């Protein structure tokens, strides 16, 4: 049976440890078109693409060029004519541009396995000519700018002579001029009948280059429409459309004097001229997509990577944070976004994980007082309802939610004035999530100032007294709790 579609994905379902990341999703792409895949963080776009490219298994059927695709892995996908530009660049830094492009399929002299370097470079040059890319193929990958690496990545995807190229945020690291160049490449590929799946958060790009748009939300298929039938507003509506179902335990707290005030804070290449203040009893939410500079911003506030310019005032006094210990001394706490990478000490016990940022309070003549440790940690376990058989249990044996609570307890033991929470409920089950929200609300009522970063719109809307919107490193605006909704936040971000 002949169809007009090059790719037909139907009933695609994928579960990650019991959570449905994709539920009966479909995606149909016509030959020679650019098809945008849109949705918020966590909507399932990347997961869907990884299934298509054979990196994940998943339920459902995929037909490509009219035949069912056996999903055995990326190698097979490439052979069938699907190539992918990944969101993260994966160059081999000490190999040349040409070697990177033809990695794993280097031209050789007959079957000797001896690489034909001349042909390798010629092939690369020919490829670059077609794509109008001006990069020396013999240069080492590590000496390229990020933008040029991105172009090499694009060239690699094209070099497979694929019928379908997946581009997962191809413009996240390049400037406007190079975006134009990319679009030229895309248009010429289109003319040759190549189809492209285009994932981007940048609305203007999507409307400029894409023919059709498919929207996913929370792992569900929402719909597919021709791009010309949509505008920014209607697209945002499709992307966020849901009602907020979750109930948030946010009690009103008395908002008092300013704790932290930040003026024109900048770090080169990460964020620019950010100014805000957060008060006692207040939860200030920072909304922004991943890569918007929000994590870098709080890292600067906490002294992990100091800002290049701007000022910070704590309780009205000017301060400089040169290291986390400065921040801790000033009664600031930070729960980082990645528990495994920067939060938990996995081989250590619950107790040791809790006391590590405030050891001084447990010292008796340099000796850690086991009794005080036990008493104070037990208090926290009880207060935060941490489910652990005992304090000596290794933290890696706890569930995500309980690990997160232990890390919260670590900072609560220091009795901070300002608590910075980066994705406070990422990878946490629903029950623990509600408990953490309730705790945040109680902490605000106790007079603590809370700065919360979150990718989850409902969480931002449900927990924040005020919302600071950050997009691509700059502060786009501020919304009061009463006036904010998902649509407004996106509008402010994209304005």
């Amino acid at each position, binding site marked *: 049976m002949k169809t007009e579609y090059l790719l037909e994905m139907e009933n695609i379902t994928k579960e990650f*440890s019991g959570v449905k990341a994709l539920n009966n999703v479909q995606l149909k792409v016509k030959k020679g078109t650019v098809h945008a895949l849109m949705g918020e963080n966590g909507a399932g776009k990347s997961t869907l693409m990884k299934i298509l490219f054979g990196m994940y298994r998943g339920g459902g059927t995929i037909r490509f060029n009219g035949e069912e695709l056996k999903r055995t892995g990326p190698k097979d996908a490439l052979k069938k004519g699907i190539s992918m530009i990944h969101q993260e660049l994966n160059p081999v830094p000490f190999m040349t541009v040409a070697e990177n492009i033809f990695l794993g399929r280097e031209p050789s002299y007959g079957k000797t396995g001896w690489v034909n370097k001349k042909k390798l470079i010629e092939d690369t040059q020919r490829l670059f000519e077609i794509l109008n890319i001006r990069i020396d193929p013999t240069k080492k990958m590590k000496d390229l700018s990020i933008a040029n690496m991105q172009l090499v990545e694009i060239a690699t995807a094209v070099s497979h002579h694929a019928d379908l190229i997946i581009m997962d945020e191809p413009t996240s690291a390049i400037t406007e001029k190079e975006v134009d160049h990319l679009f030229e490449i895309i248009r010429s590929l289109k003319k040759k009948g190549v189809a492209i799946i285009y994932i981007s958060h940048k609305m203007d790009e999507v409307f400029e280059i894409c023919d059709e748009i498919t929207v996913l939300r929370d792992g569900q298929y929402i719909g597919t429409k021709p791009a010309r039938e949509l505008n920014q507003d209607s697209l945002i509506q499709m992307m966020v459309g849901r009602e907020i179902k979750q109930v948030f335990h946010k009690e009103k707290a008395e908002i008092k004097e300013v704790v932290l005030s930040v003026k024109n804070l900048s770090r080169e290449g990460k964020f620019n001229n950010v100014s805000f203040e957060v008060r006692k009893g207040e939860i200030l939410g920072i909304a922004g997509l991943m890569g918007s500079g929000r994590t870098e911003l709080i890292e600067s506030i*906490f002294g*992990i990577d100091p800002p290049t310019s701007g000022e910070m005032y704590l309780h009205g006094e000017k301060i400089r944070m040169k*290291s*986390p*210990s400065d*921040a*801790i*001394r000033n009664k600031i706490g*930070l729960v*980082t976004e990645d528990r495994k*990478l*920067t*939060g*938990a*000490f*996995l*081989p*250590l016990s619950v107790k*040791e994980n809790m*006391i*590590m*940022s405030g*050891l*001084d309070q447990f*010292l008796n003549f*340099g*000796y*850690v007082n*086991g009794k005080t440790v036990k008493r104070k940690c037990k208090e926290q376990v009880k207060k935060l309802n941490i*489910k*652990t*058989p*005992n304090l000596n*249990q290794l933290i*890696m*044996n*706890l*569930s995500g939610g*309980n690990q997160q609570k232990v890390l919260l307890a*670590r900072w609560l033991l220091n009795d901070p004035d300002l608590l910075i929470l980066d994705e406070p409920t990422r990878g946490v089950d629903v029950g623990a999530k509600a408990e953490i929200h309730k705790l945040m609300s109680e902490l605000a009522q106790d007079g603590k100032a809370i700065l919360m970063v979150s990718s989850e719109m409902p969480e931002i809307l449900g927990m924040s007294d005020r919302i600071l919107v950050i997009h691509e490193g700059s502060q786009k605006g501020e919304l009061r709790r009463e006036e904010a909704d998902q649509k407004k936040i996106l509008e402010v971000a994209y304005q």
Partner: protein
Amino acid sequence: MKTEETIAKKQTISHDRDRTGWKEKIPELFSRYGIFLIFLALVALMSVLTPHFFNVYNLINVVKQVSFIGIVAMGVTFVIITKGIDLSSGSLIALVSVIAASFAHPGDYPLFVPLLLGVGVGAFAGLINGTVSAKGMIPPFIATLGMMTAARGLALLYSDGRPIGNLSDSFLFLGSGDLFGIPFPIIVFLFVGLLMHLLLSNTKFGKHTYAIGGNEQAARICGINVDRHLILVYTLAGFLTGISALMLTARISAGQPSMGVMYELDAIAAAVIGGTSLTGGIGTIPGTMIGALIIGVLNNGLDLMNVSSYWQQILKGAIIVTAVLIDSRKNKKA
């Protein structure tokens, strides 16, 4: 205690499904408490296999032999817990040995001069190890490999490649003296062991050592000055190596530039057999002491049974690999 633990384990399992099962926990429990049982079993085995093993004289001899490497291994334990490695201890022993010996001739200097010089040289070399790897961002493997090579060269240069003899009686006491019938090295071994155990398990310094090895990024966020701490840890390792070198020099009555070859590997082996994990964040001083004793008992028992030293090496190698195998199994679930 036992039942409490089993209950705790059961509770844990019921809380979370993707936790590892009870069976996979055995290696963990095993490597935590089992090492002592293995040691006892080994002692029992040796006692049965050879009549010359289990008597006070021989046992004291074993512990004495173990003392030297045991003290070095304690410093190495700190280093490995931070996820580092120290390959320089063997060569440092030689360097400390010749320098200390040259100041320990009878009537030349008071005893404290060679002693302070010895531990000072050790600590200073450790300081360089730590600084180069922490501030220079050079992997400790390379930094200490450099020190290993250079310190051996320095020792040979300083001594002209010859042993330095004629040491004062008070210096020789360090290696061959007794207190209440117990050889001095054993007393130092136990005393240093106790101190290091307290330091590692009950002080800020110790907790920070575990934290850095457990998750360096998280340690920074907890306000720990990671670079400074690493420098101190390597300095401590060098200092302990210095103590061991002084006693070894006294025991063989000479400063020897060829001393301590392969000691670094024995020290690492003792720490690893004792449950210290090369992936960082795990390890104890008592474990390392037992690890050193296991190597000592094995060497001694096999010697007494006239097993060839070739076979001894093969066996030792197998034991080290087995210990790490258990360790890697344990860490796989992380």
